């Protein structure tokens, strides 16, 4: 199943399971399903009037979990963007923490309720706080990698962004800087073909963001982002290259956006119904499940148990967040400067 079309250096040949143990494959699936279930709950809370804003990772789960699992949560750093629920879950952020972020509770680890939901950040999990202006995090990742090199650490920094954001000047400056200095960083473009309503054909005159790598002398790899194993393998190769001191890589991970851009958007106003149905049919979750079944490492009973477990955790997270305190208005002036 795993296939990575490589431009530049090809990833090392691997078996179909990417060299992952059954246990790790189950873990992979768990994170994907958890990301989906939490995401769906977020929408329920939004429609129920409890969460003013939701922005989704649905359709991106395989890409996000696949990359996360090829990174090392004990030494690598993430510079994610708002779609990266699956990524941060796989890096150790808990469903409770996610829900506290959604509901802007005082104990939201990202920002204590200051930022909009999905503006991930978690010091203990090595997830660097991100903002809303797109593509700024690409430069931060390059800087993190620079520091790691100067400090002699084996850290890799990973930046995540959409294909629309790859048109920002910061994308260019970040990739150029990292490639000149051969920094240990991977740039992961989660290419879902749309920037809100604007299709990629109006964003760039090329069919693959990976083509941009040629301008920086680094590998640019197109990856099937609906296949977590393909993503895992491509990421693993890029991470290994980074750790060897050979510099950055650009991954163009093709995914689907199964929801509207956010809860403030309705994609039916700019995308034909057939396209939406076609994307739905490409959902990475059932695809991975049936692959595991074909390998004899997953069955209905396991699926059922997983669903029960996930629902329990999502319920728990929701209840926990609902019962958590909102930020005290008296803290408004806190944290403008260091204490």
């Amino acid at each position, binding site marked *: 199943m795993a296939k990575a079309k490589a431009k530049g250096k090809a990833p090392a040949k691997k078996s179909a399971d990417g060299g992952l143990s059954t246990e790790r494959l189950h873990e992979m699936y768990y994170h994907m399903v958890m990301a989906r279930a939490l995401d769906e709950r977020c929408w329920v809370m939004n429609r129920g009037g409890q969460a003013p804003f939701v922005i989704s990772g649905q359709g991106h789960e395989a890409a996000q979990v696949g990359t996360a699992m090829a990174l090392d949560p004990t030494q690598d750093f993430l510079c994610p963007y708002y779609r990266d629920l699956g990524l941060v879950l796989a890096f150790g952020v808990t469903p409770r923490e996610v829900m506290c972020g959604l509901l802007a509770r005082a104990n939201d680890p990202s*920002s204590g309720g*200051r930022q909009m939901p999905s503006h991930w950040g978690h010091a203990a999990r090595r997830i660097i706080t991100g903002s809303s202006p797109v593509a700024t995090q690409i430069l931060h990742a390059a800087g993190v990698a620079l520091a790691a090199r100067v400090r002699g650490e084996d850290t890799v920094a990973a930046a995540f962004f959409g294909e629309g954001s790859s048109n920002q000047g910061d994308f260019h400056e970040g990739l150029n800087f990292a490639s000149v200095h051969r920094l240990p960083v991977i740039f992961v473009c989660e290419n879902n073909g749309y920037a809100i309503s604007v299709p990629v054909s109006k964003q760039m005159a090329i069919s693959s963001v990976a083509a941009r790598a040629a301008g920086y002398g680094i590998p640019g790899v197109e990856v099937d982002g609906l296949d977590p194993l393909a993503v895992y393998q491509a990421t693993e190769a890029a991470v290994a290259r980074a750790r060897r001191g050979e510099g950055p890589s650009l991954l163009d991970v093709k995914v689907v956006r199964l929801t509207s851009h956010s809860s403030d958007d309705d994609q039916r106003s700019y995308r034909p119904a057939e396209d939406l149905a076609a994307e739905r049919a490409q959902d990475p979750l059932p695809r991975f499940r049936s692959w595991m079944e074909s390998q004899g490492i997953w069955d209905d009973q396991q699926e059922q148990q997983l669903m029960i477990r996930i629902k329990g955790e999502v319920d728990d997270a929701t209840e926990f967040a609902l019962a958590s305190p909102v930020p005290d208005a008296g803290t408004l002036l806190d944290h403008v400067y260091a204490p």
Partner: protein
Amino acid sequence: MAMTYLEAVRETLRQEMRRDARIIIYGEDVGVRGGVFRATEGLQDEFGEDRVMDSPLAESAIIGTAIGAAINGLRPVPEIQFADFIFPAVNQIVQEAARIRYRSNGTFGVPIVIRAPYGGGIHGALYHSQSIEAFFAHVPGLKVVMPATPYDVKGLLAASIEDEDPVLFLEHKGAYRSIRGDVPDERYLIPLGEAEVKREGTDVSIISWGMTVNSSLKAAENLAKQGVSVEVLDLRTIRPLDTEAILKTAKKTGKVLVVHEDNLTGGFGGEVSALIAEHALFHLDAPIRRLAGPDVPAMPYAPSLEHAFLVTPEKIEAAAKDLAAF
């Protein structure tokens, strides 16, 4: 005809585009989707893809290319999706658009109108809530327009489009749907640099611009019931600035409250206050007061924190009442 602030933006754009074929609109999601706030809804259908274009997600490019297009004879009206995302384009706005006339000794000009939704109170958090006017009001060569009402939107937007210089046209997101008012069908212009007394009064002058004018009017109405007569001066454009109108109201009531949503320190209220202190000090019966957002980097998301940040009619009312009693 009664319409919302948002409709006033859209209908003015439509009327202007019908009148002047040089006008083009572009930005992120302004085409098929009609803008994330629907300010350009239907315009691509009417004027075609050449005049209403979705651009790549790159603000510096949006403004930088608008500069070139203006110099080559068009009247671009680019949209920045949220005022908060204008910062990647600051170099093009401040160091290029606003400076090109001066640096070329008057031979080149950049007639563009940059529309950007600003302001908070809409659960937009730190990056979808900012009031950015003070950064730009500091820049000679640029004009900064901040209408409060649908009527003013129309007259000021048309005047901005006719203007030969770059204009930053800031529309308050909170006003889009909540503020309604009468807007005549026919075209009219409101000159940039003319403030308007939106309510006459004798005890206290509130000076404001943009959305907080509406909040100030609400406060003034409540205070009237309590026997406090408040004058509300709407600056409408903060550069050029109607200094005469400011001094006139200050001298009239002798008590001035300057109100803005942007944070206090270095905010435009400081400029208004300094002007009064310089030119009308001996007409004052109380120290000038400023009511503004607190000095935190931007507006937080959690409703408790967002509310604590906002400059509400209640806060304005309390401040004005306090001042009246001085």
